[in-house]
């Protein structure tokens, strides 16, 4: 369901603003979409994520998350075994049995996601129908939905996209003649969500709702009166699903850094007809605080050469923030996928000559990174320690999904995340 159309051409393309976009194919060192469960299971407080897959899937999700989490997590795996594959048992019966055992154990669950994986997609196990069947059986206590987080279809944060897209059909319908409402889309840290709520309220924009909601039964309404604003750059399918329900996108850069946050808020303000004076008044304190918070890091990061390996699709907005607000130079900006529409504003803000690479050929990219010897390399956990051992300072990229980084009051924290590895290097004397 999240499969992307084949890449039409591998030729480099140059945008009007002088940003080169090149595509690359080969070995990809990225997570699959199942990893999104790591933060989604905390964001939606009464949801449970049941992966239907292999032992590899279970191992992935506990390696990526489980070992960091000591509380009983709200995810598990229904591991398919040879009896399922050989058709000795009926997979749908088996799935029903597993779900029953799970719901007995966790009576607090209100929303259950059946999450597809590579094995379940390859054997074409129909989880959509399974979810409908199970939903009938366990409703009204539990709602059952499905999406795919498989590696063959999704990369890392695209798992969140697939999950949210599965929620969209469940959203109540907003009447066509309802007053315009703002929907902010993308899982944000609770504290960030609350800050944005306050800001929108000061701007006089109301009502404002967030997707995903913190509780399964608090899904916001959607309809032709809904204007949605993406808080994350990886929400291709969710955006499409929202538009199918009549909602319209507010184009904007992403709320990273002071400039990004201002532009993001301004796009919403313009869409809702907020007066410029009111916008100035509402955002001035935030901008002032961000300026104070960013100043000390600018000195640390200015003129540093940064290399991004592809990971989350956050790379382009982050590169834009680092180059424009922190004065870094961009050696290469890798991204697993590039949604040219959603990222148009971001790409326009990148400095001329920026090299953007969509996709990956791991060994070639590592060669380029070694040759460039950047001051800071943003990469995944499989590469970070090996590159450190080669003398390159790294910032492991997953942290950018696990840390509140959006908005004015996190701008300093965001800069600090990149400055920290560099500071650490200067501190260590052994």
């Amino acid at each position, binding site marked *: 369901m999240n*499969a992307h159309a*084949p890449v039409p051409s591998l030729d480099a393309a140059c945008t009007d603003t002088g940003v080169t976009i090149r595509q690359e194919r080969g*070995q*990809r*060192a*990225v*997570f*699959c*979409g*199942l990893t999104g469960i790591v933060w989604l299971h905390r964001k939606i407080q*009464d949801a449970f994520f049941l992966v*239907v897959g*292999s*032992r*590899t899937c*279970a*191992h*992935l999700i*506990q*390696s990526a998350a*489980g*070992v960091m989490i*000591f*509380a*009983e*997590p709200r995810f*598990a*795996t*229904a*591991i398919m*075994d*040879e009896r399922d*594959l050989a058709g000795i*048992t009926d*997979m749908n019966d*088996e*799935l029903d049995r*597993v779900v029953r*055992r799970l719901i007995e*154990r*966790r009576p*607090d669950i209100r929303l259950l996601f059946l999450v597809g994986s*590579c094995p379940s*997609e*390859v*054997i074409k196990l129909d989880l959509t129908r399974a979810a409908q069947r199970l939903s009938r059986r366990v409703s009204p206590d539990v709602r059952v939905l499905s999406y795919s987080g*498989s*590696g*063959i*279809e999704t990369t890392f944060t695209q798992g969140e996209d697939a999950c949210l897209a599965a929620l969209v059909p469940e959203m109540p319908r907003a009447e066509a003649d309802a007053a315009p409402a703002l929907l902010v889309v993308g899982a944000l840290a*609770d504290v960030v969500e609350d800050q944005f709520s306050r800001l929108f309220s000061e701007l006089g924009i109301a009502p404002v709702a967030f997707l995903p909601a913190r509780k399964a039964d608090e899904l916001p309404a959607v309809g032709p009166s809904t204007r949605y604003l993406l808080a994350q750059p990886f929400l291709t399918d969710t955006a499409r699903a929202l538009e199918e329900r009549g909602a319209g996108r507010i184009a904007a850069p992403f709320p990273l850094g002071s400039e990004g946050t201002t532009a993001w808020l301004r796009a919403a303000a313009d869409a809702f007809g907020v007066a410029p004076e009111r916008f100035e008044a509402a955002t001035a304190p935030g901008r002032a605080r961000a300026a104070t918070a960013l100043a000390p890091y600018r000195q640390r990061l200015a003129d540093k050469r940064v290399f991004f390996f592809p990971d989350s699709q956050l790379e382009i907005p982050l590169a834009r923030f680092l180059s424009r607000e922190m004065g870094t130079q961009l050696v290469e900006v890798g991204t697993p996928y590039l949604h040219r529409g959603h990222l148009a504003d971001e790409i326009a803000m990148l400095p001329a000559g920026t090299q953007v690479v969509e996709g990956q050929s791991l*060994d070639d990219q590592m060669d380029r990174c070694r040759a460039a010897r950047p001051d800071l390399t943003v990469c995944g*956990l*499989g*590469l*970070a*320690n*090996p590159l*450190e*051992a080669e003398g390159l300072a790294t910032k492991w990229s997953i942290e950018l999904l696990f840390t509140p980084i959006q908005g004015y009051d996190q701008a300093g924290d965001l800069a600090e995340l990149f400055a920290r590895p560099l500071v650490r290097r200067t501190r260590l004397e052994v």
Partner: protein
Amino acid sequence: MQLTVWTYEGPPHIGAMRVATAMRGLHYVLHAPQGDTYADLLFTMIERRDARPPVTYTTFQARDLGSDTAAIFKDAVAAAYERFKPEAMIVGASCTAELIQDDPGGLAKALALPIPVIPLDLPAYQKKENWGASETFYRLVRALSGPPPAAGTARASADGRRPLCNILGPTALGFRHRDDLIEIRSLLDRLGIDVNVVAPMGASPSDLGRLGAADFNVVLYPEVARVAAQYLQKTFGQPMVETVPIGVAATIRFVEEIAALTGIDPSPVLAGAPSRLPWYSRSVDSTYLTGKRVFIFGDATHAVAMARVAATELGFRVVGLGTYAREFAREVRAEAEVHGIEATITDDYLDVEAAIQAAQPEMVLGTQMERHIAKRLGLPCAVISAPIHVQDFPARHSPQMGFEGANVLFDTLVHPLMMGLEEHLLGMFREDPEFHDGAAPSHHTRHGGPSPAPVPEAAQAALAQPAPPPSQPTAKDTVVVSLWDAAAEKELKKIPFFVRGKARANTERFAREQALPLITVETLYDAKAHFGR
């Protein structure tokens, strides 16, 4: 289908990766979908290796399935050979690639590379990580150890030279394999024995070609190396020593066994006090450890060894013993019999949780997963086996094996317990606001602490984690529990918390056996007298 909250082992290709990553000059090409590269971070993060594992993944995607995934695989093999120039290669499939049936072995063979290319057939929907490691190691040894000596050739005798052995089993991502190896090498050296090849850890494919030169094999981790050692025994006539030297007694047996095999006098190595465990354990400070009820779970090697150490070297009572390694169920069952209990053989985390609850132990010795269970049940816990997390790949020397390993074990197994004096005082004075039942041992970070200040309701809602699933008492238990009279229930609270669960269970059992309708204070003490402790 199996509902899996936590899995004790990864899929078998992780085992193959552990062997490949342990070795030098060996490359692994794994046909796998995008995302399976997560496995790299087990090595780069948990074990903190400073290089990428020698693994090339094909990382195919959905769009590739319509075309030629076999071509992708062949390209990956060719590119990996060109770039890394390994001495040998292993090729195989992950669980998803197994479903699309591209035949990695045949495809790689068609490339006719000038190095040995060993195909791995690891059935991902039947087997697991340790089996994968064992099978991979066996395939490598079989392919690379060279032809057997001609029939009738006597093994070269050790004229004048020191006896020579191979050490088999240590891998990447093994629980304390790094330090066990240091310990065992030093022990062998003191015995006057030289090490021919250590494998897979640190060995190259050409090193595997020299395995036949050793006089015998030491199998440190049967889960990984037993099958390979059996092959070497059959092919080269090398005897194998499979006593796992964890604990003082087992280490002595290990030394004596090797001494007998090589005709060496073990007494200099065993003289003096090679380990502090025996004295620490005999010193009166340890008296309170007597009869502590422990539940032990892990891989078979560590679980069995730890049961012996707990019972005979620390004086604990083993009330539960189990393993997730079905391949070694027989050994674990036999050991459980020694302790008069039935072994828990399961890879289902929920079954282990139930077994721990039923056994009412005072301490759990287990894996990373048992730490979760123990935390939920409020029990002290120490980790004795994989699966493990980053804190169990410590910087300091921390073997489990040999005499130093026994020292480490003493500290590890005693640390989580409340110290003696504190235990006494808790039993005597029950109303101390600071030191009470709910509080963690005072030498640990407080988890529970005194009852926290009341939290405003709104904040509480914000903080609220999902309620931990109730321990689901069975209907039968509920009935029995309701039979306690209030005074008896109150009296029960005066029993120290770490034996209270057992006291409750014993009393209820006593009441059932005696067909008593109500449990009174008298019943409680009758049961105590009946069962002793």
